[in-house]
């Protein structure tokens, strides 16, 4: 199908999700409050660390800024990585996969479109976390190299979405029909939860966990964001295991290179596995719940 038709469909999915989201007015209030309280919790923690000799090197020494950047990456990546699987499950349990397949859309578009609910929920929260931190709790940001920041944002979105696609494909490809599945569990609930360093610098972790953290895009995106956006951030000193191993490349360049590689691997792999999953389900008769 022509690309503009896919785009039209994506816009329509987004409109539908927005209508649904707006029809539950309490959502918006809860959602703002939730983000506010999350930021307050970390502001309180920052009070604990104030005056201590805790060192966030090379990410400056403002814990609130450090944490709200962690929340920013957490919110945008949570949707991209965690949402594709439940969205595919929703299409399956709702019985609509058959109907989407009867449309001329690509396999990809309905899943991407239905994900927009997560985008509405979580992307603005990432901005709100930055705003609350800045307006209420003393976070300070520098915006050196805005084009690099934009590139980093795009790369973390693509690479996490690629992993999300791999996770989603397991629904059909490996017949994981439960609430969760191993890819999402291993990445989101184990490696990322432990080693992404949303709330603490990963240098405090045991070395094996730091190495484990080398396999997720969050480590590199957070490293680069914090170096570039926290006043006093150091651009040259390597801290991540891969940066230490490849000191001939500057830390931020290495962060970008790794994110590009992760994006180039995860997205096509996720796409390939998703298509294979759908084709397998078409053979097995498991595209939708009703039979």
């Amino acid at each position, binding site marked *: *199908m022509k690309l503009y*038709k896919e785009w*039209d*469909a994506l*816009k*329509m999915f987004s409109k*539908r999700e927005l*209508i*649904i989201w707006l*029809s539950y007015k309490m959502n918006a209030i809860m959602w703002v409050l939730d983000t506010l309280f999350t930021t307050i919790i970390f502001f309180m923690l920052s009070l604990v660390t104030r005056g201590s000799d805790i060192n966030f090197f090379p990410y400056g020494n403002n814990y609130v800024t450090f944490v709200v950047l962690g929340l920013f990456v957490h919110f945008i990546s949570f949707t991209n990585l965690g949402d594709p699987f439940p969205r595919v499950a929703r299409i399956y349990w*709702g*019985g*609509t996969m*058959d*109907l*989407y*397949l*009867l*449309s*001329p*859309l690509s396999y990809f578009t*309905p899943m991407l479109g239905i994900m927009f609910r997560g985008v509405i929920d979580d992307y603005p929260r990432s901005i709100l976390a930055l705003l609350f931190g800045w307006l209420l709790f003393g976070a300070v940001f520098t915006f050196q190299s805005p084009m690099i920041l934009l590139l980093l944002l795009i790369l973390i979105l693509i690479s996490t979405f690629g992993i999300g696609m791999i996770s989603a494909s397991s629904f059909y490809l490996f017949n994981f029909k439960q609430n969760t599945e191993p890819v999402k569990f291993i990445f989101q609930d184990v490696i990322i939860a432990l080693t992404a360093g949303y709330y603490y610098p990963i240098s405090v972790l045991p070395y094996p966990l730091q190495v484990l953290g080398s396999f997720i895009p969050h480590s590199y995106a957070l490293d680069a964001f914090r170096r570039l956006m926290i006043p006093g951030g150091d651009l040259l000193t390597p801290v991540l295991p891969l940066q230490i191993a490849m000191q001939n490349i500057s830390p931020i360049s290495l962060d970008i290179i790794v994110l590009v590689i992760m994006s180039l691997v995860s997205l096509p792999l996720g796409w390939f596995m998703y298509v294979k999953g759908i084709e397998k389900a*078409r*053979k*097995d*008769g498991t*595209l*939708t719940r*009703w*039979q």
Partner: protein
Amino acid sequence: MAIEKAIELQNIFKRYKIKNSKSPFVALDDVSLSINKGEIFGLLGSNGAGKTTIIKIMAGLLEADSGSGSVLGHDIYKEHKTIRSMVSLVAPTADVGTDNNLTVRQNLEFWAVVYALEAKQRVARINEMLDFLDLRQYEHHWPMSISAGNRQKLAIARSLLVENPIIFLDEPTVKLDAKSADAVRELVGRINREFGITVILTTHYIFEAEELCERVAIMHKGKIISCDTVANLRKNLQKYDELTITCKDISKEAIDGIKAFPYVITCDYGANTIRIQMTNLHEKLLEIIKALRKHGIEITEIATNQPSLEDIYVEKIGAGGSQ
């Protein structure tokens, strides 16, 4: 002129794996079908007979294990994507594909874009469907606030947004009250007549198949055990037509005369009635009437009783499979 075929399937097999079982469930067992363009074709069978499986294979949503076939000339294995773009489907429950957070019109707007209707056509087509299905008065209602019958109409409207030559209706009247079911049945006939769409309908309601379908395939345990027009199915059934004649002045000579006809199986009589079991009722009825009148019998009423599709269904699959 040769009848154009919409769908042809030959020797289709489909098995589903069953968890914790070595032997698979045989959903389709050597099924062959031929459906003409423009007809209403019925797939009649009880739950688990294989109706939905065969529909999904014909719609390109499920791959057969073996056999061959084509839909509108496209191979079911190699061209399933093309087939999917040429068929519409209404699932057994109207809730599939209906978003209760959107109004009736918003639901149709959503699917019009998903089905890639040109922007200029969308509004006109949605309005046409709202009018055709008599849903205009509900266009700004939530689906949950309209009747089940109207929700089913909404599902049908969605499937008709694209002008596809084939529509599959999987048990379109299941879960509907009698009035709503009547309305949907009337609609199915109109879709076929007014748009020339080939309708393939699954049902386990025998009267529905009899009322709507030009031809019916009776399915049982994954097999098609009979496929023909309702009239031919009746004709081939080894069950006799029954004729009940109310009359005066019945004589034994007259009854013997009737019994002498080769197509009469039994002939019993009482004070004012004669009951005849016979074959070829329509062709031979006049002959019987003439014979009775020849013996001075005055006929006041004639009642015929032909086997229904239900009789055929029960005969074909046995009482255990009847609904």
